């Protein structure tokens, strides 16, 4: 076996694959953020809390209704998405015409409230959630042991990401959405209900966060602070990818997952800062992000 920079190639390939798995979570979450920002111009700081609610919702469904992972994968995004729509109707639409900062502060406050409520009811330690029967175990790839569940995470999130990209960039509905972002008044003149479309888009973005939450439940600790641990990283991913760029969010999510994975081999202590270092560099060199359109 050969070595790269003193690291056995085996370990390196393993880490690359693991990075890709983490990247799929980053991609899913930053995709939701990018969709919301791109269409609504709202910096959705509740995203982490909504991701956490997704994981909790999956846990509650299993605990109290015996509803399994597969059903949760469908039900949870809808439930949390509807909650998101409520939030949009009740709060966000009133600040949408104001500066970004108002939306940011509002959603940040909501995130703190939601997190506090969950901590009050469920404590800070977290709740158990098992990997579904069908995906337990794993296979030996020769260079690493790949749990089946992780393989599923990569495949499924990639599918969701590409489907979302396709829906927004390549379909008629997507073109309405993009048009409404550019010029809402004109699009309304064509008889399209823009406010409803905006609301549904927010619900969809939130649903994506909830979906990521369900997928995270079997492998990460389901606790009220799981979202706030992740959301900052995801924001960095969105900034690096370019705010509002769908493909940018997806690609950056996966790439940064890999970068982080490699850092864990070469310099583990820096693994949670490396993304921010990259963010600083990107902001210096390309302020609009890697894939962003300059405003």
């Amino acid at each position, binding site marked *: 076996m050969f070595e790269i920079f003193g690291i056995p190639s085996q*370990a390196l390939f393993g880490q690359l694959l693991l990075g890709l798995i983490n990247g799929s979570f980053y991609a899913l979450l930053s995709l939701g953020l990018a969709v919301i920002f791109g269409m609504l111009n709202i910096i959705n700081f509740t995203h982490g809390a909504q991701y956490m609610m997704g994981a909790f919702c999956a846990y509650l469904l299993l605990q109290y209704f015996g509803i399994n992972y597969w059903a949760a994968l469908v039900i949870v995004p809808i439930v949390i998405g509807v909650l998101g729509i409520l939030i949009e109707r009740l709060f966000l639409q009133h600040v949408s015409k104001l500066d970004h900062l108002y939306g940011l502060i509002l959603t940040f406050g909501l995130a703190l409230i939601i997190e506090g409520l969950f901590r009050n009811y469920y404590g*800070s330690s*977290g709740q158990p959630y098992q990997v579904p029967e069908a995906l337990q175990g794993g296979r030996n790839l020769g260079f690493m042991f790949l749990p089946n569940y*992780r393989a599923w995470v990569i495949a499924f999130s990639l599918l969701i990401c590409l489907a979302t990209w396709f829906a927004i960039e390549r379909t008629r509905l997507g073109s309405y959405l993009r048009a409404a972002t550019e010029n809402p008044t004109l699009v309304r003149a064509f008889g399209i209900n823009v406010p409803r479309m905006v609301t549904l888009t927010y619900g969809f973005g939130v649903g994506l966060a909830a979906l990521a939450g369900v997928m995270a439940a079997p492998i990460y600790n389901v606790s009220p602070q799981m979202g706030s641990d992740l959301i900052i990283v995801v924001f960095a991913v969105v900034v690096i990818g370019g705010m509002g760029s769908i493909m940018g969010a997806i690609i950056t999510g996966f790439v940064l997952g890999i970068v982080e994975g490699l850092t864990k081999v070469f310099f*583990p202590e820096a*693994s949670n800062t490396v993304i921010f270092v990259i963010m600083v560099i990107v902001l210096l060199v390309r302020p609009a992000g890697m894939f962003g359109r300059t405003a």
Partner: protein
Amino acid sequence: MRLIATLALAATAALTSAAHAEDLTVKLGVLNDMSSLYADIGGQGSVIAAKMAVEDFNPAAHGMKVEIVSADHLNKPDVGSNIVRQWFDVDHVDAVLDVPTSSVALAVNEVVREKNKVFLVSGAATSDLTGAKCSPNTVHWTYDTWMLANGTGKALVKSGGDTWFFLTADYAFGHALERDTTAVVLANGGRVLGSVAHPLNTQDFSSFLLQAQASKAKIIGLANAGGDTDNAIKQGAEFGITAGGQHFAGLLVFITDVQALGLKTAQGLVLTETFYWDMNDATRAWTKRWQVERPGKFPAMTVAGVYAATMHYLKAVAALKSATDGKAVVAKMKDMPTDDPLFGKGYIRADGRKIHPAYLFEVKTPEESKYPGDDYKLRATIPAEEAFRPMKDDNCPMVTN
């Protein structure tokens, strides 16, 4: 005229001191993490435990009045020491309780010493509180890093787990725990094959787990706490670490963590604690009372420690009939043998270390568990004399001088 004045003065003085003796007011402050990572091992649970201790002590029967205040230190040393200063200077608090997070506890330790009050530590782990940083105003009740390392480390090496790999939280507590455990492993004839330091609050442990897996060490020592430990174990199960014959050693695992993981994931985990709610009738009865306010939850040993320490403190104050001189109260606490329903009989050493047995537990399998919270089976009892660091190794200036 002058005589009358003197008499009157004397009478007033006598009256006021009588009033004081009748109504000795003691104020306790529970300081811990109420809102994040460690809220479940202390938080409101500790406040309830302190209230229960006051109830059981029955202050009225001793001519005392006891008040309890509480605050959230946000796991920040500066916040913690500011609250404590205000408690002493403005609110006339006599004793500070609990204080998880070693860095905060060390900061509070200094303030308490300076103000000559009393510090009853339950939540914090660092053995420095009775070592280099020991204080005549401090009693360290429940557990410490030396005890954790000694309990879990020694037992595992002795039962064949002689090669170790550490996953260490990259801050003072993690490194201290790794250092203490390494010493125990080496002393018992084991070997440490490697270690990796991960950042605090890591979501994904898979990379570190692969490194641990590749090391082929029999035991993967988790020198971390809370969510980090939970994530590592949860993902370890997924990567087939336990199925592959390697074992996790949770160097700091509370029952709240086991509950969070679920028995299916946590089964087989070996850990050391000084209190388990299901030990005997007394602990079960106590837990039942505690659960009235915390339904569905189980008290960690840290919560039990707050109860027991409060109880013993109040006994000492009642014996002294004064709470003003913190050093004197702690000295009295050390003179009196301890006895409470949760830790049994014990005593407090000259360095401030509370001495009681420790228990090596193994987490049950889901099949073995008969009811909620039926999580542990006892593997060994570590006698009180062996459970904690011998005083000669303390480096505590107060004792050596």
